[in-house]
Structures are given as C-alpha cells and as structure tokens.
C-alpha cells in the first residue's frame, strides 16, 4: 500500500486502468484508462451520454466495473463502497448538485464532514469554505433549497471540500449557470488547487474545459478517443473539427 507513490513522487494520484462498465446488460464503458497526477486539473470532455458521469461514479464506488482496476494513491479502490472511497480522500460533487434541500446550509456542510477523518478538521475546513464562498457564511441558517442556482453550486462544492479531499471529482459544475457565476466558480477552483487539492472535472463546455484544465481526456460513446495537454489538444485537427467547428 502506498509503496509506489513513495518511491516515485510523480506517480499518478488516481489511476484508472482498462475498465469495462455495464448498466444491467448494457455496456457503457469500454476499456477506459485515465490518470490524474497530484496537483493537476484534468478535464473529461464528451457529449451527453458519452459515459463521463458513469466514469466518475465508478471512481466514487457507486458502480463497480466488470473488468479493470482503479487505484488511488497506489491503493486499489476498485471494489470499495462510496463511503470508503470518500474516507480515502476522493470526493465527488455530483451533477445537479444534489444538496439536501430541507437541511440548512450549515447542516449540508456538516454532513460533508461526516467521514471520521474529516470530522476532526471540521472547523478548519469550514473556515476554508467560508473564505472561498463568503456568501455561504451569510446564508448558513437558510435551507439549502432557498439558495439561488449559483449559491447552490457553491454549497455543493463547499460540501465536497468539507470531506477534506485530496481529489475532487466535479460533475457538470457550470450547467445552467450564468457565465459570470461560472467564472467565479472556476476562480475558486484554481484557488482550491493552489491549496493542494487535485481536480478531475467533467464539463460540457469544451472551450471552458480546455481553458481551465492542464490536461484533458476526450470520451465518445464509452471510449477514451484522445488525451493530452490542453495546448496540444487545442491544435489537434479532430478536436478543432468536432468541437470548434473549424
């Protein structure tokens, strides 16, 4: 456990190797591999139904792959349950935010620190979240469902941060939000990375993805078709054609 990562500091923090995933009898991911190194921001790009969210859910342990393996920090997490994955330091901020609507903002954040190792750092993390998103402190006693869309996304991100993660999986953060709010969120994201948290995010908006990430993977109908540094990908003919209409 952890051997490899200690010997080789640039070893991947998250390593997904050749996974096949089924929904019932329907295969949705084919031989997918992906790596995220410590401190990186990696984007996962693909259209609706390409399997992006499924991949995040597999990493989180909500679905288990039929084949292949997932390692986090050199440790196999392929068959772990979601709560065990969170306890190791991988937290997903799900699509659609999925806040607890009838709990207060503060209670949503507290639930975020449910994992045993996160509980001891609760106050410290709460302070950090309030620094990133001061509006949450202002609204801490309101019910989550009374927040605006942008505030809800901030709460979702903040709730994820409360689990004291080393890797955050972000699913469609900017969906349905005004560009200004999105800017604000991505600004917070780069600050979060500065704080030492690695980020893997899923985003519909390709321009935005290639702007914010260090590297990106492009997924189409369940297969990774391209990957690389965003600078390279921007120049790639296929990407230009498919995503920028050039």
């Amino acid at each position: 456990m952890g051997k490899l990562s200690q010997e080789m500091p640039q070893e991947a923090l998250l390593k997904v190797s050749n996974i096949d995933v089924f929904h019932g009898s329907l295969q949705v991911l084919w031989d997918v591999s992906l790596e995220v190194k410590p401190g990186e921001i990696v984007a996962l790009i693909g259209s609706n139904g390409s399997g992006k969210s499924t991949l995040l859910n597999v990493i989180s342990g909500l679905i288990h792959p039929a084949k292949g393996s997932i390692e986090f920090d050199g440790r196999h997490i392929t068959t772990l349950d979601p709560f065990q994955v969170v306890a190791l330091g991988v937290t997903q901020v799900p699509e659609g935010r999925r806040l607890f609507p009838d709990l207060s903002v503060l209670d949503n954040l507290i639930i975020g620190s449910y994992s045993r190792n996160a509980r001891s750092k609760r106050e410290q993390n709460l302070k950090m979240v309030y620094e990133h998103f001061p509006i949450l402190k202002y609204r801490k006693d309101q019910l989550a469902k009374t927040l605006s869309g942008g505030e809800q996304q901030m709460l979702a991100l903040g709730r994820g941060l409360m689990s004291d993660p080393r890797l955050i999986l972000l699913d469609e953060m900017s969906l349905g939000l005004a560009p200004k709010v999105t800017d604000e969120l991505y600004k917070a994201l780069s600050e979060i990375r500065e704080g030492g948290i690695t980020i893997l995010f899923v985003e519909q908006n390709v321009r935005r993805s290639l702007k914010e990430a260090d590297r990106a993977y492009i997924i189409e109908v369940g297969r990774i078709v391209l990957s690389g540094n965003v600078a390279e990908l921007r120049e790639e003919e296929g990407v230009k054609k498919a995503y920028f209409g050039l």
Partner: protein
Amino acid sequence: MTALGNLATPLVMGVLLGGLYGLIALGLSLVFGVMRLINVAHGDLVILGTYFAYFAFTILGIDPILSLFIGMPLLFALGFAIQKYLMSRSFGISMEVPLIIAFGISLIIQNVNQIIWTPLSRGLTTSYALESFVVGGVRIPLAYLLDFIAALIVMLLLSQFLRRTYLGKAIVAASQDTRAAQLMGINTARIYALTFGIAMATAAVAGVFLGITFPFTPISGIAFLIIAFGVIIIGGLGSMLGTFIGGIVLGLAQTLGGYFLGAAAQMLIAYIIVLVVLAIRPQGIFGR
C-alpha cells in the same frame, strides 16, 4: 348531566390516546422516510415489545416501564438485524420483495407470540394502569396520561437527536437523497440498519404503553399497523408535530366512535377515516 359534559371524557381521552398513536407511528414513519419501506410488520413488532414487557412483568417481576431498559436495546438489535440481514438484500430486487418479506416477518412474529403466549387476550395490569383521576369533572385513566407524556418525551428526544447529532443529521440526509449521502461519505447501509433499530426502540416504548392501556393478543398488531399508517397519512412525513396531530385525530376518532356507536365499533371510524383520507389525498401525504 349535559350531553357536552358527557362528551368531555371521550374528548380528553382521545387527545391523550393520540399521543400513544403518534408514538406507535413514529417508527413506521422513520423507516418509511429513510428507506421508502412500508414495514407491514411494524404493528407486530410493537406487540412484540408489549409481550416482552409482559414477560418481564409477570415472570421476572419487573415493572413494564422499567423493563424498557432491556426491551429497547433488544428491539433495537432485532431491528438492526432485520434490516442488515433481510431487508438490505431485498431492496435491489424489486419494489414488491421488501413488502412481502415484511409480511413474512409479520407472520413469523404473530405466530411466535401465539405459540409462546397462546391467543388469549392479556394486559399489563400494573397497579397504576388501573388508577384514574378526576380533573374538572372528567375522570381520566392514569394510563392515558402516561401514554401522552411518554409520547411527548420520545418525540422530543428523537427530534433533538435528528437535529443535533452527526448520526441524526446523516439519517435526515439519507432520507432526502440517498445517493448524495453516499457521496458525502455516509455508509448508508449502516444508516439504514441503525434507523431500523431506532425505529424498533421507539416501537418498544410504544408497545409498553399500549399494553398498559389496552388488552392485547398476538394478532393485535394489524390494527395498530393500520392506525400507525393512518397517522402518517394524516400527519405527513418527517414532521413530529404532524405525527402528533395525526395521532390525535385517530385517537379522537376511536374514543368518539366508541362513545356514539359502542365499544365494538370504535376502530371502525378510525379505519374509515384512513380510507377517506386516502381517497382525498391520493398520493397519501407521503407524496412530495
């Protein structure tokens, strides 16, 4: 005596009884709220608590209310085990399977009680269960007042537990969005088992006070299941106040039904109210 003066007794008793009914419904509501499971064995589990107290009272000589110090942990453990070993496996299969399993558990408990205790009607006839007192010309059995107080205490404790503790918040979170709760690091399988256990601990309390108030048989559980269901339908889910109000409506239905139609008909009014409320609010008050 005026007709109104006569009515005062069933009115006061109905309200007090409502506390007991709210208490009986509490566990059913909790399990439904968190797992979306209608535990049709709930009434029988309450009656199991009553029989445990009966055992403690008649054989060990322990006061029924004191016996809760053993009865609550016992029923908690039973509930925990039912969820962990039986229900949890069934959730993924289909909607009917957990219901039918609960039905099977109901049958098992009824018949275990029948084999041990025979079908005879019994009661927790403590000295205080038979006492009554007079307030403003209304004679009230002490047992009814105890029901009400016990219900208040349990509801208050439970709502504080859900509001203030990590575990309580996790239970509430899981009831609002199971998947999100999982993603926040909550072991929902364990939360489910604990929830079932807590629900059964409240059932143990309900069982004792039920036994102090009414005679019971091994098949009394169904009647109390229907009442508990009615309470939730009327009072809504997840609201302690609603549960209390639902309990009082059905408590009044029973005492007033008994007053106007005779003792044999007292449950009929309560059942009809449940059916009528179902007809008016098709989604039940469960529907969100």
